[in-house]
């Protein structure tokens, strides 16, 4: 069994793909551990709980974001670091953007309401509050290539989690914060939904937030942009975007 890993040892040296022979036929994480312990001690990656809940071992496997601990290893798999973040070393990327994104979208309880919470209220935010901040959606999102300030899928899903939270008596600041570089900048490509290991659907969450925003009187910027010019149906990334309108 062979594993291919994208290595990046330092800023000075260019990234390259290295192949390793692996004995264990289990998870990608076990294969990475084998490489580090037995083949090359200098190989670096993050991992923690090994059960898919700490979110630290997210990488790209054959081009798709996956949690290494929950992904079965197949011969010749290619493992690469996440996209859209600076690579520090091998599979380790800089995660310092996370705090900023959550801070900028104000995804927290602003003012607790004294109202009663029911079973169905609780269900309303269950899926969104299962997010583990693994950065898979962030890595899969094409918008970051053109807008580094985009709040992005997990911040917006978290925004919906608090907007929908019956405990929140003042969700206005959250909706306000996500209008610019937020819900209207999303291309609705759905990559985030496909890669989420927690089965969260940020694309739907963003559409939901768009609807709530319009209801609150915010301008629907997707319509605004449609009126202001001719949309060819081809997005700025060079491919046809079925959700372009």
């Amino acid at each position: 069994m062979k594993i291919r890993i994208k290595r990046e040892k330092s800023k000075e040296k260019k990234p390259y793909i290295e192949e390793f022979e692996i004995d264990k036929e289990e998870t990608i994480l076990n294969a990475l551990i084998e490489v580090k312990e037995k083949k090359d001690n200098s190989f670096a990656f993050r991992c923690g709980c090994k059960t898919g809940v700490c979110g630290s071992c997210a990488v790209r496997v054959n081009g798709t974001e996956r949690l290494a601990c929950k992904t079965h290893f197949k011969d010749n798999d290619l493992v690469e670091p996440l996209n859209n973040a600076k690579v520090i070393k091998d599979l380790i990327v800089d995660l310092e953007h996370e705090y900023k994104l959550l801070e900028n979208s104000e995804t927290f309880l602003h003012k607790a309401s004294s109202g009663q919470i029911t079973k169905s209220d609780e269900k309303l935010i269950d899926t969104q509050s299962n997010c583990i901040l693994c950065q898979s959606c962030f890595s899969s999102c094409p918008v970051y290539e053109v807008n580094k300030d985009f709040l992005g899928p997990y911040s917006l899903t978290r925004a919906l989690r608090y907007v929908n939270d019956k405990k929140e008596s003042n969700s206005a600041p959250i909706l306000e914060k996500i209008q610019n570089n937020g819900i209207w900048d999303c291309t609705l490509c759905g990559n985030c939904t496909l890669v989420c290991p927690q089965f969260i659907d940020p694309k739907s969450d963003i559409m939901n937030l768009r609807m709530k925003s319009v209801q609150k009187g915010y301008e629907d910027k997707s319509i605004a942009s449609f009126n202001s010019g001719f949309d060819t149906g081809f997005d700025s990334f060079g491919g046809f975007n079925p959700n372009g309108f």
Partner: protein
Amino acid sequence: MIDILIIGSGGAGLSAALKAKEENASVLVVSKTHTTHSQTCQAQGGINAVLETTENDSIENYEKDTYKASHKLANKKSLKYFCENSKQTINWLDSIGVPFSRDENNNIAQRKFGGTKAKRTCYSSDYTGHKILHTLYDQCIKNSIDFKNEHLLLKLLTKNNTVTSALFLDIKTGEIVQIDAKTVILATGGYGGIYHNFTTNSYATTGDGIAVAFKAGAKLSNMEFIQFHPTSLLNKNILISESARGEGGYLIDSKGKRFIDELKPRDEVARAIYKKYEEGDKVYLDLTHLGKEKIEEVIPQERRLVLDFLKIKMEEEVIPITPSAHYSMGGILTDEYAQTNIENLFACGECAQSGIHGANRLGGNSLLEIVTFGRLAAKNAAKKAKEVKCEEKNENNLETEKKRVAKILKKEKNEDFYKSKNIIGELLFNKVGLFREKNTLEEALKYLEEEKNKIKSMGIEDKSKEYNKNLVEYLEFENILLLCQIVTNCAYKREESRGAHFRTDFIKEDKKFDKISICKLENSDIITTFEEIK
């Protein structure tokens, strides 16, 4: 100079940070990992509290159950504070946005866990720890708490038995940094991870804070008490929460027979399962009678884990399970103010022995502990910080530590510490595990001493400065080895069976050990004694 330096960003550290802010203290949280990567996210089942006094439950009952499980080793004063404040703690979590599951009457739902007669465990499906941790993090962002991520604690500096600073390896840059503070709170997690490959713990849980505090002169206590969780997936060490049994799951042997009351305390259930394995049998968790709908409602994460890792649908098939090292009851000894024996040094959460769990922890008590004592530690640290005068700090230690790490980087690799880490994990599970005895403990002590001598020849291959994970893991291994010696030493000295500590050569609880064990470093020797509970 900051008022409070919090080391560790799990549930205890974040609870402390929020309380510190409430007390208007300046605070910095420094963590080895990133905030939400901590062990707290793995706590599934729930968090205990008496929300309402009824004929079925009361604070007194809660105290009694916990004290009973502790086998007389809990500190009654601390336990009283813990239980009395449980409702307030849950209400606080609820008020900051933790999405607790609700019952039919729209109250916070509670389930029954082992060792109690009442439904006392509040939960958020089976993501309780995860949802608490993430909500705390969101609140930290709201309150603009400062974080320094990926800094490994190397040393605590003290002057006249008072902590003044901490030294860290900034993993990203490879620099050694000193952070001075008026008070320090350790919230660095437990040491179950020393049972490497035989534990449900995260790879990052290596007991660094406890080892570093010990080297700085802190008293450790009850280090022999390791909780083995009865149900982790066979050969995977992946936890299946007690809520699976709490919701009605059975434990069966290969003939399909139940052999123990599933809701007995964890130590008894774990030993009964281990015995079955020693007899050559296997043990399974049977949830098939619950049905898919109920499973999806109450333990969805468990269902997904079993499906992902064993490709088993738990509503159709039984699940092969085994016990695994799960939680460490011992730690840095703290008093009822969460203060250690070093002035201005506080400890909370799993790294502390705060007098709650004694010889055995009840499920649902650890999450309550991290929040309760995290907040208590911060309250007292904030008060203390007001009394501390800022002095010029001595930086000689920084240079010494820089030289020590530089020396490690230069060492030749003649022995492989990764190999040792794997061997030691297995050794500990077999010889200092669910069943212990004099001979095997002596063997373990001897082996660990040999390993210690080998450290000199354990070099590291990676010589780079930035993000040297090889160096980090070497430094962690030094801590692991020290803690292995301490745990084995304490297990050797406690000649009785009590809670999670079971000696086959002393199978009964012995009155003369109605005491907590204390470990101290004296002239580089580990000295274990026993003390009355104050």
